[in-house]
Protein backbone atom coordinates (compact mmCIF):
# COMPACT_ATOMS: atom_id res chain seq x y z
CA UNK A 1 0.00 0.00 0.00
CA UNK A 2 1.24 3.51 -0.74
CA UNK A 3 0.07 6.80 0.71
CA UNK A 4 -1.68 7.77 -2.54
CA UNK A 5 -3.91 4.69 -2.19
CA UNK A 6 -5.51 6.37 0.81
CA UNK A 7 -5.26 10.08 0.00
CA UNK A 8 -8.25 11.69 -1.75
CA UNK A 9 -10.35 8.55 -1.29
CA UNK A 10 -13.99 9.10 -0.25
CA UNK A 11 -14.92 8.04 3.27
CA UNK A 12 -18.25 6.38 4.06
CA UNK A 13 -19.76 5.29 7.33
CA UNK A 14 -20.95 1.74 7.80
CA UNK A 15 -24.38 2.56 6.36
CA UNK A 16 -22.78 3.93 3.20
CA UNK A 17 -23.36 7.62 3.95
CA UNK A 18 -20.70 9.93 2.61
CA UNK A 19 -18.60 11.61 5.28
CA UNK A 20 -15.93 13.34 3.24
CA UNK A 21 -12.53 12.65 1.72
CA UNK A 22 -9.20 11.64 3.16
CA UNK A 23 -7.12 14.79 2.91
CA UNK A 24 -4.12 13.62 4.91
CA UNK A 25 -2.62 10.75 6.89
CA UNK A 26 -1.42 11.23 10.43
CA UNK A 27 1.59 9.30 11.64
CA UNK A 28 2.95 9.03 15.17
CA UNK A 29 6.60 8.18 15.74
CA UNK A 30 6.03 5.85 18.66
CA UNK A 31 6.80 2.46 17.13
CA UNK A 32 9.81 0.33 17.92
CA UNK A 33 12.94 2.48 17.59
CA UNK A 34 14.41 2.00 14.14
CA UNK A 35 17.97 3.01 13.30
CA UNK A 36 17.51 6.73 13.89
CA UNK A 37 13.85 7.60 14.28
CA UNK A 38 11.07 5.58 15.83
CA UNK A 39 8.92 3.75 13.32
CA UNK A 40 6.13 5.93 11.96
CA UNK A 41 2.83 4.31 12.82
CA UNK A 42 -0.24 5.24 10.77
CA UNK A 43 -2.30 6.77 13.54
CA UNK A 44 -5.29 8.34 11.84
CA UNK A 45 -6.90 9.62 8.67
CA UNK A 46 -7.69 13.33 8.36
CA UNK A 47 -11.14 13.58 6.78
CA UNK A 48 -12.55 16.79 5.35
CA UNK A 49 -16.30 16.86 4.67
CA UNK A 50 -16.22 19.64 2.07
CA UNK A 51 -13.19 19.35 -0.09
CA UNK A 52 -10.71 16.85 -1.37
CA UNK A 53 -7.83 19.28 -1.30
CA UNK A 54 -5.57 19.57 1.67
CA UNK A 55 -4.47 23.08 1.14
CA UNK A 56 -1.72 24.30 3.45
CA UNK A 57 -3.24 22.64 6.53
CA UNK A 58 -4.50 25.82 8.19
CA UNK A 59 -7.37 23.84 9.73
CA UNK A 60 -4.84 21.83 11.74
CA UNK A 61 -2.31 24.43 12.79
CA UNK A 62 -2.39 27.46 15.01
CA UNK A 63 -1.09 29.72 12.23
CA UNK A 64 -3.54 32.59 11.60
CA UNK A 65 -1.52 34.57 9.07
CA UNK A 66 -1.54 35.78 6.36
CA UNK A 67 -4.95 37.33 6.71
CA UNK A 68 -7.31 36.69 4.91
CA UNK A 69 -5.80 33.64 3.20
CA UNK A 70 -5.48 31.64 6.41
CA UNK A 71 -8.99 32.32 7.78
CA UNK A 72 -10.60 31.60 4.39
CA UNK A 73 -8.85 28.25 4.00
CA UNK A 74 -9.57 27.42 7.61
CA UNK A 75 -13.25 28.17 7.12
CA UNK A 76 -13.28 26.15 3.90
CA UNK A 77 -12.01 23.13 5.78
CA UNK A 78 -14.32 23.56 8.78
CA UNK A 79 -15.64 20.29 10.12
CA UNK A 80 -12.43 18.43 9.30
CA UNK A 81 -12.03 15.51 11.68
CA UNK A 82 -9.67 12.69 12.54
CA UNK A 83 -10.53 8.99 12.45
CA UNK A 84 -8.13 6.64 14.16
CA UNK A 85 -6.80 3.87 11.98
CA UNK A 86 -8.37 1.06 14.08
CA UNK A 87 -11.79 2.58 13.27
CA UNK A 88 -11.24 1.84 9.57
CA UNK A 89 -13.20 -1.28 8.59
CA UNK A 90 -12.33 -1.51 4.92
CA UNK A 91 -9.84 0.02 2.50
CA UNK A 92 -10.35 -0.18 -1.27
CA UNK A 93 -8.11 -2.60 -3.10
CA UNK A 94 -5.38 -0.54 -4.77
CA UNK A 95 -5.02 -2.97 -7.64
CA UNK A 96 -8.75 -3.05 -8.46
CA UNK A 97 -8.50 0.25 -10.31
CA UNK A 98 -11.30 2.78 -10.40
CA UNK A 99 -14.53 1.02 -9.61
CA UNK A 100 -17.90 2.42 -8.66
CA UNK A 101 -17.56 4.90 -5.85
CA UNK A 102 -19.16 2.65 -3.26
CA UNK A 103 -16.49 -0.01 -3.57
CA UNK A 104 -13.71 2.55 -4.00
CA UNK A 105 -14.42 4.16 -0.65
CA UNK A 106 -12.93 3.75 2.77
CA UNK A 107 -15.58 2.39 5.11
CA UNK A 108 -15.50 3.14 8.82
CA UNK A 109 -16.70 0.96 11.67
CA UNK A 110 -20.15 1.64 13.06
CA UNK A 111 -18.92 2.96 16.37
CA UNK A 112 -16.10 5.14 15.02
CA UNK A 113 -15.13 8.27 16.93
CA UNK A 114 -14.35 11.58 15.28
CA UNK A 115 -11.55 13.57 16.90
CA UNK A 116 -10.43 17.16 16.53
CA UNK A 117 -7.73 17.44 13.90
CA UNK A 118 -5.50 20.03 15.54
CA UNK A 119 -1.79 19.35 15.58
Amino acid sequence: MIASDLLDVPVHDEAGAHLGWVVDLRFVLDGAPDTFLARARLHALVVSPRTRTSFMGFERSSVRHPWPVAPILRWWHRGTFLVHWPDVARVPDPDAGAGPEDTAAIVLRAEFTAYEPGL
Partner: protein
Amino acid sequence: MKSRLLTVALGILTAIGGFLDAGDLVTNAVVGSRFGLSLAWVVLVGVVGICVFAHMSGKVAAVSGRATFEVIRERLGPTTAGLNLAASLAVTVLTLVAEVGGIALALQLASSVDHRLWVPVAALAVWLVLWRVKFNLMENVTGLLGLTLVGFAVAVFLLGPDWGDLAAQLVPQVPVQESAAVYWYFAVALFGAAMTPYEVFFFSSGGVEDGWTVKDLASSRLNVMVGFPLGGLLSVSIAACAAIVLLPAGIQVDSMSQLTLPIAEAGGTLLVAVVIVGLVAATFGAALETALSTGYTLSQYLGWSWGKFRRPARAPRFHLAMILALVVAVGVLMTNVDPIAVTEYSVVFSAVALPLTYLPILVVANDPEYMGEHVNGRFMNVLGTVYLFILVVAALAAIPLMIVTEAGG
Protein backbone atom coordinates in the same frame (compact mmCIF):
# COMPACT_ATOMS: atom_id res chain seq x y z
CA MET B 1 35.25 41.13 3.60
CA LYS B 2 33.35 41.99 0.48
CA SER B 3 32.70 45.62 -0.27
CA ARG B 4 29.17 46.94 0.08
CA LEU B 5 28.70 47.18 -3.67
CA LEU B 6 29.56 43.56 -4.26
CA THR B 7 27.23 42.48 -1.45
CA VAL B 8 24.29 43.78 -3.43
CA ALA B 9 25.39 42.30 -6.76
CA LEU B 10 22.80 39.54 -6.54
CA GLY B 11 19.97 42.03 -6.10
CA ILE B 12 21.25 44.18 -8.97
CA LEU B 13 21.63 41.23 -11.32
CA THR B 14 18.18 39.92 -10.39
CA ALA B 15 16.63 43.31 -11.00
CA ILE B 16 18.43 43.78 -14.32
CA GLY B 17 17.09 40.40 -15.45
CA GLY B 18 13.61 41.41 -14.39
CA PHE B 19 13.34 45.06 -15.41
CA LEU B 20 15.95 45.45 -18.14
CA ASP B 21 15.92 42.23 -20.14
CA ALA B 22 15.82 42.53 -23.93
CA GLY B 23 12.03 42.54 -24.07
CA ASP B 24 11.67 45.10 -21.31
CA LEU B 25 14.36 47.42 -22.71
CA VAL B 26 12.30 47.77 -25.87
CA THR B 27 8.92 47.73 -24.08
CA ASN B 28 10.06 50.61 -21.87
CA ALA B 29 11.06 52.62 -24.93
CA VAL B 30 7.78 51.75 -26.67
CA VAL B 31 5.86 52.89 -23.61
CA GLY B 32 7.87 56.11 -23.42
CA SER B 33 7.42 56.87 -27.12
CA ARG B 34 3.66 56.26 -26.99
CA PHE B 35 2.55 57.12 -23.45
CA GLY B 36 5.28 59.46 -22.21
CA LEU B 37 5.67 58.91 -18.49
CA SER B 38 1.98 58.29 -17.86
CA LEU B 39 2.75 54.63 -17.04
CA ALA B 40 5.69 55.30 -14.71
CA TRP B 41 3.39 54.72 -11.72
CA VAL B 42 3.05 51.07 -12.79
CA VAL B 43 6.82 50.62 -12.48
CA LEU B 44 6.64 52.07 -8.96
CA VAL B 45 3.83 49.66 -8.03
CA GLY B 46 5.82 46.80 -9.54
CA VAL B 47 9.03 47.74 -7.72
CA VAL B 48 7.27 47.70 -4.34
CA GLY B 49 5.63 44.36 -5.18
CA ILE B 50 8.79 42.60 -6.27
CA CYS B 51 10.62 44.03 -3.23
CA VAL B 52 7.99 42.54 -0.92
CA PHE B 53 8.10 39.07 -2.44
CA ALA B 54 11.81 38.93 -3.21
CA HIS B 55 12.42 39.91 0.39
CA MET B 56 10.17 37.08 1.61
CA SER B 57 11.72 34.50 -0.71
CA GLY B 58 15.23 35.60 0.28
CA LYS B 59 14.28 35.37 3.93
CA VAL B 60 12.84 31.86 3.51
CA ALA B 61 16.02 30.80 1.68
CA ALA B 62 18.28 32.30 4.34
CA VAL B 63 16.39 30.91 7.33
CA SER B 64 15.31 27.48 6.10
CA GLY B 65 17.77 26.88 3.26
CA ARG B 66 14.87 26.08 0.96
CA ALA B 67 14.71 27.82 -2.41
CA THR B 68 11.41 29.04 -3.80
CA PHE B 69 10.44 26.18 -6.09
CA GLU B 70 11.05 23.59 -3.37
CA VAL B 71 8.59 25.57 -1.27
CA ILE B 72 6.09 25.76 -4.13
CA ARG B 73 6.23 21.99 -4.68
CA GLU B 74 5.93 21.30 -0.96
CA ARG B 75 2.97 23.58 -0.39
CA LEU B 76 0.99 23.15 -3.60
CA GLY B 77 1.58 19.43 -4.19
CA PRO B 78 2.74 17.87 -7.44
CA THR B 79 -0.23 18.77 -9.65
CA THR B 80 -0.67 22.46 -8.97
CA ALA B 81 3.07 22.95 -8.64
CA GLY B 82 3.46 21.07 -11.94
CA LEU B 83 1.09 23.53 -13.58
CA ASN B 84 3.15 26.38 -12.18
CA LEU B 85 6.33 24.65 -13.37
CA ALA B 86 5.00 24.40 -16.92
CA ALA B 87 3.90 28.04 -16.97
CA SER B 88 7.06 29.33 -15.30
CA LEU B 89 9.29 27.35 -17.62
CA ALA B 90 7.39 28.75 -20.58
CA VAL B 91 7.95 32.32 -19.35
CA THR B 92 11.58 31.67 -18.50
CA VAL B 93 12.51 29.88 -21.72
CA LEU B 94 10.68 32.46 -23.87
CA THR B 95 12.66 35.15 -22.06
CA LEU B 96 15.86 33.17 -22.54
CA VAL B 97 15.14 33.04 -26.28
CA ALA B 98 14.68 36.81 -26.23
CA GLU B 99 17.87 37.31 -24.23
CA VAL B 100 20.11 35.25 -26.48
CA GLY B 101 18.62 37.18 -29.40
CA GLY B 102 19.00 40.38 -27.40
CA ILE B 103 22.70 39.83 -26.77
CA ALA B 104 23.08 39.33 -30.52
CA LEU B 105 21.14 42.54 -31.28
CA ALA B 106 23.21 44.48 -28.74
CA LEU B 107 26.46 43.13 -30.16
CA GLN B 108 25.28 44.06 -33.63
CA LEU B 109 25.00 47.67 -32.44
CA ALA B 110 28.71 47.62 -31.68
CA SER B 111 29.89 45.58 -34.64
CA SER B 112 27.39 45.83 -37.52
CA VAL B 113 27.83 42.07 -37.91
CA ASP B 114 24.33 40.70 -38.53
CA HIS B 115 22.69 39.59 -35.29
CA ARG B 116 21.82 36.17 -36.70
CA LEU B 117 25.53 35.42 -36.83
CA TRP B 118 25.97 36.49 -33.21
CA VAL B 119 23.30 34.11 -31.90
CA PRO B 120 25.43 30.93 -31.65
CA VAL B 121 28.34 32.93 -30.24
CA ALA B 122 26.10 34.48 -27.61
CA ALA B 123 24.61 31.13 -26.61
CA LEU B 124 28.06 29.55 -26.37
CA ALA B 125 29.32 32.41 -24.21
CA VAL B 126 26.33 32.09 -21.89
CA TRP B 127 26.91 28.36 -21.58
CA LEU B 128 30.62 28.78 -20.85
CA VAL B 129 29.84 31.14 -17.99
CA LEU B 130 27.22 28.72 -16.62
CA TRP B 131 29.71 25.88 -16.97
CA ARG B 132 32.89 27.37 -15.60
CA VAL B 133 32.48 30.66 -13.84
CA LYS B 134 31.92 30.93 -10.11
CA PHE B 135 28.48 32.24 -9.13
CA ASN B 136 30.03 35.04 -7.16
CA LEU B 137 32.20 36.29 -10.00
CA MET B 138 29.32 35.96 -12.43
CA GLU B 139 26.94 38.10 -10.37
CA ASN B 140 29.58 40.72 -9.62
CA VAL B 141 30.77 41.21 -13.19
CA THR B 142 27.36 41.21 -14.90
CA GLY B 143 25.84 43.27 -12.09
CA LEU B 144 28.56 45.92 -12.27
CA LEU B 145 28.66 46.09 -16.07
CA GLY B 146 24.88 46.25 -16.18
CA LEU B 147 25.13 49.37 -14.04
CA THR B 148 26.45 51.21 -17.10
CA LEU B 149 22.79 51.40 -18.14
CA VAL B 150 22.77 54.30 -15.72
CA GLY B 151 23.72 56.04 -18.97
CA PHE B 152 19.98 56.29 -19.64
CA ALA B 153 19.44 58.21 -16.42
CA VAL B 154 22.44 60.43 -17.23
CA ALA B 155 20.99 61.02 -20.69
CA VAL B 156 17.73 62.28 -19.21
CA PHE B 157 19.68 65.01 -17.41
CA LEU B 158 21.90 65.83 -20.39
CA LEU B 159 18.83 66.19 -22.62
CA GLY B 160 17.77 68.97 -20.25
CA PRO B 161 14.05 68.50 -20.67
CA ASP B 162 11.39 70.81 -19.37
CA TRP B 163 11.16 69.23 -15.92
CA GLY B 164 7.75 70.66 -15.18
CA ASP B 165 6.44 69.24 -18.41
CA LEU B 166 8.02 65.86 -17.65
CA ALA B 167 6.61 65.84 -14.12
CA ALA B 168 3.16 66.64 -15.49
CA GLN B 169 3.36 63.48 -17.58
CA LEU B 170 3.71 61.39 -14.43
CA VAL B 171 -0.01 61.72 -13.76
CA PRO B 172 -1.70 58.46 -14.78
CA GLN B 173 -3.82 59.26 -17.82
CA VAL B 174 -4.61 57.72 -21.17
CA PRO B 175 -3.08 59.86 -23.96
CA VAL B 176 -5.65 61.18 -26.45
CA GLN B 177 -4.36 59.17 -29.39
CA GLU B 178 -4.38 55.84 -27.50
CA SER B 179 -7.27 53.74 -26.30
CA ALA B 180 -7.85 52.76 -22.68
CA ALA B 181 -7.50 49.06 -23.53
CA VAL B 182 -4.01 49.58 -24.97
CA TYR B 183 -3.03 51.70 -21.99
CA TRP B 184 -4.11 49.00 -19.56
CA TYR B 185 -2.53 46.28 -21.67
CA PHE B 186 0.83 48.01 -21.31
CA ALA B 187 0.15 48.63 -17.61
CA VAL B 188 -0.39 44.90 -17.06
CA ALA B 189 2.62 44.02 -19.22
CA LEU B 190 4.90 46.40 -17.27
CA PHE B 191 3.57 45.14 -13.94
CA GLY B 192 4.03 41.52 -15.04
CA ALA B 193 7.56 42.26 -16.23
CA ALA B 194 8.45 43.86 -12.91
CA MET B 195 7.12 40.89 -10.96
CA THR B 196 8.10 38.15 -13.40
CA PRO B 197 8.40 34.90 -11.42
CA TYR B 198 11.94 33.92 -12.42
CA GLU B 199 13.25 36.85 -10.38
CA VAL B 200 12.27 35.18 -7.08
CA PHE B 201 13.44 31.76 -8.31
CA PHE B 202 16.79 33.28 -9.15
CA PHE B 203 17.03 35.50 -6.10
CA SER B 204 16.21 32.76 -3.58
CA SER B 205 18.38 30.16 -5.31
CA GLY B 206 21.15 32.74 -5.58
CA GLY B 207 20.86 33.24 -1.84
CA VAL B 208 21.41 29.50 -1.39
CA GLU B 209 24.33 29.66 -3.86
CA ASP B 210 25.85 32.49 -1.87
CA GLY B 211 25.42 30.41 1.29
CA TRP B 212 23.06 32.77 3.08
CA THR B 213 22.08 31.94 6.65
CA VAL B 214 20.07 33.78 9.28
CA LYS B 215 23.10 36.05 9.72
CA ASP B 216 22.71 37.26 6.12
CA LEU B 217 19.14 38.54 6.51
CA ALA B 218 20.40 42.12 6.54
CA SER B 219 22.37 41.47 3.39
CA SER B 220 19.29 39.99 1.73
CA ARG B 221 17.27 43.04 2.69
CA LEU B 222 19.97 45.36 1.36
CA ASN B 223 20.03 43.47 -1.95
CA VAL B 224 16.30 43.92 -2.31
CA MET B 225 16.28 47.57 -1.27
CA VAL B 226 19.08 48.55 -3.66
CA GLY B 227 18.57 46.24 -6.62
CA PHE B 228 14.92 46.51 -7.51
CA PRO B 229 14.44 50.28 -7.03
CA LEU B 230 17.54 50.76 -9.20
CA GLY B 231 16.06 48.49 -11.87
CA GLY B 232 12.80 50.42 -11.72
CA LEU B 233 14.60 53.75 -11.92
CA LEU B 234 16.52 52.67 -15.01
CA SER B 235 13.40 51.40 -16.72
CA VAL B 236 11.67 54.74 -16.10
CA SER B 237 14.79 56.51 -17.42
CA ILE B 238 14.52 54.57 -20.67
CA ALA B 239 10.87 55.56 -20.97
CA ALA B 240 11.82 59.17 -20.20
CA CYS B 241 14.53 59.24 -22.89
CA ALA B 242 12.02 57.91 -25.40
CA ALA B 243 9.39 60.38 -24.24
CA ILE B 244 11.76 63.34 -24.61
CA VAL B 245 13.32 62.52 -27.99
CA LEU B 246 11.28 59.89 -29.83
CA LEU B 247 7.72 60.88 -28.91
CA PRO B 248 7.92 64.40 -30.42
CA ALA B 249 9.67 63.02 -33.54
CA GLY B 250 6.76 60.65 -34.17
CA ILE B 251 9.01 57.62 -33.87
CA GLN B 252 7.34 54.38 -32.82
CA VAL B 253 9.95 52.13 -31.27
CA ASP B 254 10.15 48.69 -32.81
CA SER B 255 13.81 47.75 -32.47
CA MET B 256 16.65 47.91 -30.00
CA SER B 257 18.73 50.18 -32.24
CA GLN B 258 16.27 53.04 -31.67
CA LEU B 259 17.23 53.04 -27.98
CA THR B 260 20.59 54.55 -28.89
CA LEU B 261 19.12 57.58 -30.69
CA PRO B 262 18.17 59.57 -27.55
CA ILE B 263 21.52 58.63 -26.03
CA ALA B 264 23.40 59.97 -29.07
CA GLU B 265 21.34 63.16 -28.86
CA ALA B 266 22.20 63.56 -25.17
CA GLY B 267 25.75 62.37 -24.68
CA GLY B 268 27.30 61.66 -28.05
CA THR B 269 29.47 58.73 -29.07
CA LEU B 270 30.98 58.10 -25.67
CA LEU B 271 27.67 57.72 -23.88
CA VAL B 272 26.37 55.52 -26.72
CA ALA B 273 29.37 53.26 -26.25
CA VAL B 274 28.76 53.10 -22.49
CA VAL B 275 25.10 52.29 -23.01
CA ILE B 276 25.88 49.60 -25.57
CA VAL B 277 28.15 47.94 -23.00
CA GLY B 278 25.20 48.16 -20.62
CA LEU B 279 22.83 46.65 -23.18
CA VAL B 280 25.17 43.72 -23.78
CA ALA B 281 25.72 43.21 -20.05
CA ALA B 282 22.02 43.50 -19.21
CA THR B 283 20.90 41.04 -21.88
CA PHE B 284 23.78 38.74 -20.98
CA GLY B 285 22.89 38.95 -17.28
CA ALA B 286 19.24 38.29 -18.06
CA ALA B 287 20.25 35.31 -20.21
CA LEU B 288 22.25 33.89 -17.29
CA GLU B 289 19.38 34.56 -14.91
CA THR B 290 16.78 32.88 -17.11
CA ALA B 291 19.01 29.93 -18.02
CA LEU B 292 19.82 29.34 -14.36
CA SER B 293 16.17 29.75 -13.39
CA THR B 294 15.24 27.04 -15.88
CA GLY B 295 17.66 24.70 -14.14
CA TYR B 296 16.63 25.83 -10.65
CA THR B 297 12.88 25.39 -11.14
CA LEU B 298 13.13 22.00 -12.82
CA SER B 299 15.69 20.67 -10.32
CA GLN B 300 13.84 21.97 -7.29
CA TYR B 301 10.51 20.56 -8.45
CA LEU B 302 12.02 17.14 -9.10
CA GLY B 303 14.47 17.14 -6.19
CA TRP B 304 17.61 16.99 -8.33
CA SER B 305 20.96 18.23 -7.19
CA TRP B 306 21.46 21.82 -8.37
CA GLY B 307 23.66 24.82 -7.98
CA LYS B 308 26.67 26.46 -9.49
CA PHE B 309 28.53 26.04 -6.21
CA ARG B 310 28.74 22.34 -7.07
CA ARG B 311 30.94 21.09 -9.87
CA PRO B 312 28.84 20.18 -12.96
CA ALA B 313 29.43 16.45 -12.38
CA ARG B 314 27.78 16.83 -8.97
CA ALA B 315 24.66 18.43 -10.49
CA PRO B 316 24.50 16.77 -13.91
CA ARG B 317 20.78 16.97 -14.61
CA PHE B 318 20.73 20.64 -13.60
CA HIS B 319 23.45 21.39 -16.13
CA LEU B 320 21.82 19.23 -18.77
CA ALA B 321 18.54 21.15 -18.33
CA MET B 322 20.34 24.46 -18.90
CA ILE B 323 22.16 23.13 -21.95
CA LEU B 324 18.86 21.94 -23.42
CA ALA B 325 17.24 25.30 -22.70
CA LEU B 326 20.05 27.08 -24.58
CA VAL B 327 19.76 24.64 -27.49
CA VAL B 328 16.02 25.35 -27.64
CA ALA B 329 16.73 29.09 -27.56
CA VAL B 330 19.18 28.89 -30.47
CA GLY B 331 16.79 26.62 -32.37
CA VAL B 332 13.91 29.06 -31.99
CA LEU B 333 16.10 32.00 -33.04
CA MET B 334 17.25 30.09 -36.13
CA THR B 335 13.65 30.22 -37.40
CA ASN B 336 14.26 33.95 -37.78
CA VAL B 337 11.61 35.08 -35.32
CA ASP B 338 11.89 38.56 -33.86
CA PRO B 339 13.49 37.92 -30.46
CA ILE B 340 11.77 40.93 -28.94
CA ALA B 341 8.29 39.90 -30.11
CA VAL B 342 8.73 36.50 -28.44
CA THR B 343 8.44 37.97 -24.95
CA GLU B 344 4.98 39.39 -25.64
CA TYR B 345 3.50 35.94 -25.34
CA SER B 346 5.03 35.29 -21.95
CA VAL B 347 2.29 37.51 -20.49
CA VAL B 348 -0.14 34.64 -21.04
CA PHE B 349 1.94 32.19 -19.02
CA SER B 350 2.69 34.76 -16.34
CA ALA B 351 -1.03 34.91 -15.68
CA VAL B 352 -0.85 31.31 -14.42
CA ALA B 353 2.60 31.42 -12.88
CA LEU B 354 2.37 34.67 -10.87
CA PRO B 355 -0.35 33.78 -8.32
CA LEU B 356 0.87 30.19 -7.99
CA THR B 357 4.38 31.43 -7.21
CA TYR B 358 3.65 34.24 -4.79
CA LEU B 359 0.91 32.55 -2.74
CA PRO B 360 3.15 29.73 -1.43
CA ILE B 361 5.92 32.22 -0.63
CA LEU B 362 3.51 34.31 1.42
CA VAL B 363 2.17 31.23 3.22
CA VAL B 364 5.57 29.76 4.03
CA ALA B 365 6.90 33.12 5.20
CA ASN B 366 4.22 32.86 7.90
CA ASP B 367 4.96 29.25 8.83
CA PRO B 368 6.87 28.98 12.12
CA GLU B 369 8.10 25.50 11.17
CA TYR B 370 10.08 27.10 8.36
CA MET B 371 10.78 30.52 9.73
CA GLY B 372 10.95 30.13 13.51
CA GLU B 373 10.96 33.62 14.98
CA HIS B 374 11.46 35.22 11.57
CA VAL B 375 7.86 34.87 10.43
CA ASN B 376 6.42 37.82 8.56
CA GLY B 377 5.37 40.87 10.49
CA ARG B 378 1.95 42.40 10.06
CA PHE B 379 3.18 45.07 7.63
CA MET B 380 4.71 42.55 5.22
CA ASN B 381 1.57 40.42 5.38
CA VAL B 382 -0.71 43.32 4.56
CA LEU B 383 1.51 44.31 1.62
CA GLY B 384 1.84 40.70 0.49
CA THR B 385 -1.92 40.13 0.57
CA VAL B 386 -2.67 43.37 -1.25
CA TYR B 387 -0.17 42.43 -3.96
CA LEU B 388 -1.56 38.93 -4.21
CA PHE B 389 -4.93 40.51 -4.92
CA ILE B 390 -3.45 42.88 -7.54
CA LEU B 391 -1.64 39.94 -9.12
CA VAL B 392 -4.81 37.92 -9.46
CA VAL B 393 -6.66 40.88 -11.00
CA ALA B 394 -3.76 41.56 -13.40
CA ALA B 395 -3.54 37.87 -14.26
CA LEU B 396 -7.25 37.70 -15.05
CA ALA B 397 -7.11 40.89 -17.12
CA ALA B 398 -3.94 40.03 -19.04
CA ILE B 399 -5.29 37.61 -21.62
CA PRO B 400 -8.50 39.47 -22.59
CA LEU B 401 -6.50 42.70 -22.90
CA MET B 402 -3.91 40.98 -25.06
CA ILE B 403 -6.58 39.66 -27.42
CA VAL B 404 -8.53 42.91 -27.64
CA THR B 405 -5.47 45.06 -28.29
CA GLU B 406 -3.61 42.51 -30.43
CA ALA B 407 -0.71 42.63 -27.98
CA GLY B 408 -0.64 46.41 -27.79
CA GLY B 409 -1.29 47.07 -31.49
